[in-house]
């Protein structure tokens, strides 16, 4: 347990070294290196099919890179396993919740899959994403935008430091996008980190430091 103590004491650091990703005999990107520090957001840009989603899946450890290393506080994430995964929250193309369960049940599972009962309360998380009053509506009856909001609420119920977001603003209305940007900003200002792709221009405040990588212009 001493390692986790030092982790929280020192600033966390997430870095990738010389990543290579090959799909269907095509090199999507090679020799990709970057690092993300607390308060920073990595924003991936690039054309469709340039490997943004693949990179995010590699970063959270679902997919293996062809070569290269991803390190959390200097240690390889594949060696860390669950010790790395307790620090991340992933929002993929698919929302990742069950249509047959209510939002509250879905969030409870998301929280249970995390390390411990941390993060904010479930109702509060729903309220923060504008789903107050939808606690007991079956998720399948909600609109696509509302389901996306629920997926974002999942990020709030664990105390994950690194949010990995694949097109988080899909199907959200303009107000919703602005609102979610404020939530992401608040996370970054608390010392969190983010890695995200978006087609939308990210409207974070100026003091938030963005690390921009364009995968199709490399």
């Amino acid at each position: 347990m001493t390692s986790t103590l030092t982790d929280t004491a020192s600033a966390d650091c997430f870095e990738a070294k010389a990543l290579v990703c090959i799909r269907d005999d095509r090199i999507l990107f090679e020799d990709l290196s970057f690092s993300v520090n607390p308060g920073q957001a990595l924003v991936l840009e690039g054309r469709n099919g340039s490997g943004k989603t693949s990179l995010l899946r590699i970063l959270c450890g679902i997919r293996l890179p062809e070569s290269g290393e991803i390190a959390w506080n200097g240690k390889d994430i594949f060696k860390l396993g669950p010790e790395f995964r307790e620090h991340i929250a992933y929002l993929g193309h698919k929302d990742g919740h069950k249509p047959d369960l209510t939002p509250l049940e879905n969030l409870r599972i998301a929280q249970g899959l995390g390390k411990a009962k941390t993060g904010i309360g479930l109702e509060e998380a729903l309220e923060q994403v504008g789903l107050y009053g939808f606690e007991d509506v079956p998720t399948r009856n909600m609109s696509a935008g509302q389901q996306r909001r629920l997926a974002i609420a999942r990020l709030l119920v664990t105390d994950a430091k690194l949010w990995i977001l694949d097109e988080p603003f899909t199907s959200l209305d303009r107000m919703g996008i602005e609102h979610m940007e404020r939530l992401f900003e608040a996370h970054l200002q608390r010392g969190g980190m983010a890695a995200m792709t978006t087609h939308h221009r990210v409207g974070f405040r100026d003091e938030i430091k963005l690390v921009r990588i364009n995968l199709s212009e490399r």
Partner: protein
Amino acid sequence: MSTLSLTSAFVLLFKRDLTLAYRRRAELVNPLLFFVLVTAMFPLGIGNDPVLIEKVGPGVVWVAALLSALLSLDAMFRSDYEDGALEQFMLSAHPVSILVLAKVLAHWMVTGLPLFIAAPLLAMMLHIPDEAIPTLMLTLILGTPVLSLIGSVGVALTVGLRRGGVLLSLLVLPLFVPVLIFATDAVHTASVGIPTTAQISILAAMLVGSLVLAPPATAASLRISLS
């Protein structure tokens, strides 16, 4: 990481799968209905020959249980794969093999356990002698979890394929055969009054073995399917 939060994650996931199964009751009945119909049709097909029916009885019950397990296996990870919930499991702060075990246990509760409960009735229909029915029940309670556990590895490997059904049968049916052989042999032996300790012990050993070995294999297979 505390053991407490791991236990609660296990219970949470187990309950989640039971809730999901309950909300889709119609699909739940399928494997049981298949099991009952196959065993009920057999005597009709064979004709009025109690001696013959008694002889094939244990085999019929077990083959029906095996096929019904195969029928229900695909649903174990399919919907989680499609709606992205599986990715979330793989990124959980808990060991994936423990979460897999919770899912397999829930799957067995809704597909294997009903067969166990329906078995005595079907056994009587198939003229299986009364003294062999406890043995049949014992083989089912030991054997059907093995089917779910071995099946989970096959399902995990084929869940990423669009038409994995045939491949799944090819992968797991050969592995089901030892269970079938020892289980039916135990029931045959019991019906002539010989002790069945040997067969039951082997079935129990298979259960323990698959309980230990299948979840890590399933977790690894899921990782392959997702990447």
